[in-house]
């Protein structure tokens, strides 16, 4: 499919490139250079047409090499995914026959039924959704507020707070994992705990155990700060003179302007929450609380050679994030570039 699409684009760009030299040739008759949309490579004198032809064949060869390289790389990236989807739709006998046909000879949804019947995958799915959406909402709200304060409000200690957040990004999460587990377990008055945090399981095995520690991640604050900094200070100052409260300035002036940034952060937070593995593995032991990722990983152990159900589980586990990515891919990629560029 990809090869087909790129072939048509290649064919489509062909005539355009051939057309361009003629356009510049006509422009030589007029004294002023016509504003061509794309910069033409070095204006060739009319005399050495062979040189130009040579260059155009060379550029066509270069173009061909480019397409070959890009398509090979695409196949390497996409083939495993296509093969996963195809395996998930094949009956066990066809998979074990070892045939490499991408289109199942005898397509079946049996594997998907196995996944949902043998394990409470629907329940895992809901759990992951709650954790992903919860993480997205809290990170956008608190990250937005914190990032806004660091970007647009002036107060002593601002750079110190920012440095603190930034420095924490350097600390490997494994360092804080054991104490955080203990803090959640000893959280006072929750999960059968007394005021001193003794006696029960605290927040372990609750959604809060995953959502709360990451509710205002340093990354979210950092991301939103960068985003708010691109907006002019004058908007807030004008409203401040008119007597608007700081929260109103945030909520009514800057918040609506930051929608695009918040959408990107929401998507990235959802993805991170959905894909998170190690932390839910540690704090959610109750089978009813397991996430899709944890469920899938135990699947790998229990269904070692049942590749059909395994691949079906993988497809289900990837579907939400893939769908979001397909819809919002432009914004996600630009958001990543935005953070990386800082």
């Amino acid at each position, binding site marked *: 499919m990809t090869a087909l699409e790129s072939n048509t684009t290649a064919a489509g760009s062909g005539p355009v490139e051939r057309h361009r030299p003629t356009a510049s040739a006509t422009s030589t008759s007029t004294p002023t250079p016509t504003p061509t949309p794309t910069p033409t490579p070095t204006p060739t004198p009319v005399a050495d047409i062979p040189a130009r032809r040579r260059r155009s064949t060379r550029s066509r060869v270069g173009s061909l090499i480019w397409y070959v390289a890009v398509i090979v790389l695409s196949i390497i990236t996409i083939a495993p995914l296509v093969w996963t989807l195809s395996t998930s739709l094949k009956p066990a006998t066809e998979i074990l026959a070892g045939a490499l046909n991408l289109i199942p000879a005898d397509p079946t949804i049996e594997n998907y039924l196995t996944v949902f019947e043998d394990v409470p995958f629907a329940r895992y799915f809901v759990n992951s959704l709650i954790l992903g959406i919860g993480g997205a909402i809290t990170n956008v709200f608190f990250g937005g507020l914190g990032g806004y304060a660091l970007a647009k409000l002036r107060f002593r200690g601002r750079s110190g707070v920012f440095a603190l957040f930034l420095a924490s990004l350097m600390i490997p999460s494994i360092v804080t994992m054991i104490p955080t587990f203990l803090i959640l377990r000893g959280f006072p008055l929750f999960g059968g705990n007394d005021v001193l945090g003794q006696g029960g399981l605290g927040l372990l095995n609750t959604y809060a155990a995953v959502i709360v*520690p990451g509710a205002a991640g340093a990354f979210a604050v950092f991301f939103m700060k960068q985003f708010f900094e691109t907006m002019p200070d004058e908007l807030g100052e004008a409203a401040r003179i008119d007597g608007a409260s*700081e929260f109103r300035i945030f909520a009514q002036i800057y918040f609506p302007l930051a929608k695009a940034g918040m959408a990107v952060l929401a998507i990235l937070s959802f993805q991170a929450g959905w894909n998170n593995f190690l932390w839910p593995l540690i704090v959610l032991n109750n089978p009813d609380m397991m996430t899709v990722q944890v469920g899938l990983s135990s699947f790998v152990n229990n269904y070692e050679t049942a590749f059909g159900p395994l691949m079906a589980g993988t497809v289900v586990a990837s579907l939400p994030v893939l769908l979001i990515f397909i819809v919002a891919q432009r914004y996600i990629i630009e958001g990543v570039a935005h953070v990386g560029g800082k």
Partner: protein
Amino acid sequence: MSVQPVASGTLPSGALPADVVGSPGAAGGPPRRGSGSGGRRPAHPTARQMRWNAWAFLAVPLALFAVFMLLPIVMAAVISFTDYAIVGDSEWVGLENYTRIFQDAFFWIALRNTAYYTLLYVPLGLVVALGAALLLNRSRRAVRLFRTLFYIPVVSSTVATATIWYWLLNPQKGLLNVALGWFGIDGPAWLYDSQWAMPAIVLMSVWAGFGVNMIIFLGGLQGVPGDLYEASRLDGANAWQQFRYVTLPSLSRTTFLVTTLLIIGAFQVFDQAYVLTKGGPGNSTVTMVYYIYNKGFGALEMGYASALSFVLFLIILIFSLANARLSNPSGDAGERRSRRLARKAVSAR
């Protein structure tokens, strides 16, 4: 630069509130100047109000930061000097955990495996990401399609990609060995072979992760001034020389960022090893985080695991600093400082 589409997307909608606020602000033009310089009287209450609001806005992030970042770090430091194990009494053991690490054969195995992974993964991840970015750094319509395709593996979780590769790397029926068979190559047993298990995990990780760094590199490439290429072309530089003397130096900041991210990520590799091999075969894929996880939450030796995690932190810190030295950040800091000064000058006005 690459921000532009996002920013331009907001601007049309942003134009509305700006105008709405701007029109009373037009009348407030002179007073605005008054609040800045001459208005010492009104500046005090607003400054105080702003300070209060700033701390109020930051209250939740800071509270969470204190409870789930600062407190855990302190606790981890304390626990690492005890033999805490959740159940039973714990005792202060001083530096015993730290001295024990150096005699722990498993620690050295885990460290060696992690170092091996890092040594393979960082250069490979860097080269693949930069190569893909260079390929896509041109103005063709097809670029956007391929950019999206290359990014897709990034979106899936490591567990999902690991599961995919678990099937892909199957010695008999897996896609990889079957494809190698077409060329007459008898593929290894990959995850079942202690020689090949780690390279297989590296391969999988590069495949799954190069898209992010490719995007970061693309952003960096767009920042390379076009006239540098033109000048070098006039000087007769070939493609390789342009890459070596124009592209690479201009990308030093981006390369530094990407290598740092790769190093930090590589030393913390866990998911793949947990899902694919459980540390096997023959302990060849026991990584540092995997070992710490096993000690802390498997054997419940939380004191020892905490000490291990600090050692890992120290190792990451050393490598990150070494990388910063190697990447010649002096020009970097200077550039950042000048940019900060410029920003200050603008905001002062």
